[in-house]
């Protein structure tokens, strides 16, 4: 009997919930026993260490891990690999990337970059006097948070200063950064505060689609409109693109990552082969696609109808 572990950052974010569902479906199909673990809050590193220890104690064959702290987790990953467990990083690569046996990931920086480029192109000449609200995840600035934020700014053509930190930019077009905890409540409150600061905001970057929905409510209540961009590609988010709530979102594929991961573990258990990375990259890229119904020149995108086919819940 093959047993596997799935360790996600949290289990309340729909992204990870869907990832878990994908893994469970695949595990049931292949006859693998799957146990799931998660951090208690965003950036919860300790719970992930404890989870890896539990997997080792439990004699698992493989671990699928979306790391909260990509540098810090490597010791525990090494311990697991020393115990003969296949460790696959999902969604977020570890640092260094070869700390895991394999990585099935999307490039969060690229996801941000795409929406940044789209927003800049959409605004055209006005991009020079844009007023941008940045709705980030948490003040602890976990790596997704930083990568998506800095990707967006890079795509929009703004100097990011220290690329490992958001909030240190000095470009006057940025009205302010606020944290949202990645949910509607946080998005709404953050947007209200930024609107009080500057009622003329016309571009809104959001860490994910729930916070985008919250930001939209705040704009609606204030009787304003703005270009909202986001990342994730969950079905409600794509629906929001279709309804014109969100201008564009970068879609990622958690179900795919998870099911590929489970397959790799099953294969490893059967004959000991480890998965190979995508050609030319040091990880297996599960891809990212920009979804918008207002395509712009020079940025590749798919429309919301196509996005709804590919969305993950």
């Amino acid at each position, binding site marked *: 009997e093959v047993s596997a572990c799935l360790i996600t950052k949290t289990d309340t974010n*729909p992204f990870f919930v869907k990832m878990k569902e994908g893994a469970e479906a695949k595990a049931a199909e292949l006859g693998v026993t799957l146990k799931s673990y998660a951090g208690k809050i965003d950036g919860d590193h300790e719970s992930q260490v404890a989870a890896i220890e539990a997997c080792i104690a439990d004699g698992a064959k493989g671990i699928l891990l979306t790391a909260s702290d990509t540098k810090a987790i490597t010791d525990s990953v090494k311990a697991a690999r020393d115990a003969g467990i296949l460790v696959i990083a999902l969604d977020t690569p570890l640092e260094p990337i070869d700390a895991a046996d394999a990585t099935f990931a999307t490039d969060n920086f690229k996801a941000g970059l795409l929406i940044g480029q789209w927003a800049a192109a959409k605004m055209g000449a006005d991009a020079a006097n844009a007023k941008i609200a940045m709705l980030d995840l948490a003040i602890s600035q976990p790596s997704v948070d930083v990568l998506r934020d800095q990707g967006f700014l890079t795509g929009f053509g703004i100097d990011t200063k220290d690329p490992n930190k958001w909030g*240190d930019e000095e470009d006057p077009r940025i009205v302010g950064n606020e944290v949202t905890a990645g*949910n*509607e409540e946080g998005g709404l409150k953050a947007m209200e505060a930024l609107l*009080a*600061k500057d009622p003329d905001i016309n571009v809104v970057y959001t860490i994910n689609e729930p916070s985008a929905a919250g930001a939209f409510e705040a704009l609606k209540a204030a009787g304003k409109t703005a270009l909202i961009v986001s990342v994730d590609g969950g079905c409600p988010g794509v629906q929001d693109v279709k309804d014109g709530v969100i201008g564009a979102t970068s879609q990622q594929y958690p179900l795919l990552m998870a099911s590929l991961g489970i397959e790799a573990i099953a294969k490893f258990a059967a004959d000991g082969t480890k998965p190979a990375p995508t050609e030319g990259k040091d990880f297996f890229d599960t891809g990212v696609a920009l979804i918008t119904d207002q395509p712009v020149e020079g940025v590749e995108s798919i429309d919301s109808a196509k996005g709804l086919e590919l969305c993950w819940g």
Partner: protein
Amino acid sequence: MADEAKAATSYEAGLKGASSRVAEFHEDTNTLKKIQHWLHQTPSAVPMIVLVVSLIVFGLLSDNFFKATTLSTILQQIAIVGILGCAQTIVILTAGIDLSVGAIAVFSSVLMGQMTFRYGLPAEVSIALGLCLGTAMGAVNGFLISRLKLPPFIVTLGTWQILLASNFIYSRNETIRSSDIGEQAPALQFWGGSIEAGGVKVLYAVFLMIALVAIMAYVLRSTAWGRHVYAVGDDPDAAELAGVQTKRVLIQVYALAGLFCAIAGWVMIGRFGSVSPTASTGQLGNIQSITAVVIGGISLFGGRGSIVGMFFGALIVGVFEMGLRLVGTDPQWTFFLIGVLIIFAVAVDQWIRKVAA
């Protein structure tokens, strides 16, 4: 023998003609003394002063602060914390604490939403059921605390986890979108409606919060039940001996707190548009409401303080948060400064009280 007893107390003869004058001392009547006395008698005055001062300071620091829209935004941002604070206040007055307030609120909002969208109940019925279920969750807390005599902190720590987990499991982490609710069940979003006067929108939710605070202030001050709540928090043994049904009062208090939380859950739908099981209130609602209560001058050891103080406490936090954002610090520094200002607000409160004592 009785005669012997008489003799032994014969010195009481001296009592004859004892003065019946009530002790009266000169009273200082200058204005400062009067202000001090008033401060002493009105526990909610101190947070009010802190509030006014911080309003003035932020008004000076930021041009945008003293705009009507900013002020109404502050009010709407504290609406939910204010309602949770009502729940937290009555619980803390009984020397308890309720860590589950946020979880009850979020779970109630999810229940209201899912009953409408998953089972197709009319929105009004879902709301009524949601309010009842919230009350029931509170009553369970009350039962465990009063009947099994478990410490409130640990009971509500447990139910917090239980309800939050139930919330995620039951909702399958699915958000109900604002536009769907708007079309099919607008009653759920009732409190998101607003009154417009002179270009300034004030949410119904804000009026609801103020009404709840006013009602509870009356109930706590002017009804027997309110006095019993204070007595239970002050000294439960003494209250029991003096004839208060402490257990019943405790259950009622927690159940009522549950109802307030469910109301907060309903308000959340109106305010955020959507129904989201991941709302931060579930995690942070308890700390936020406790902060408001404590800044409002209510003792965590029970029996002392006023709910109006809690209202000012919530406002102080709201004003700080908004003010700091307008002044333009980055979120980490905002977080830092709010920490500083919480301590500062309570220190000022303490200092004024000391001067006034």
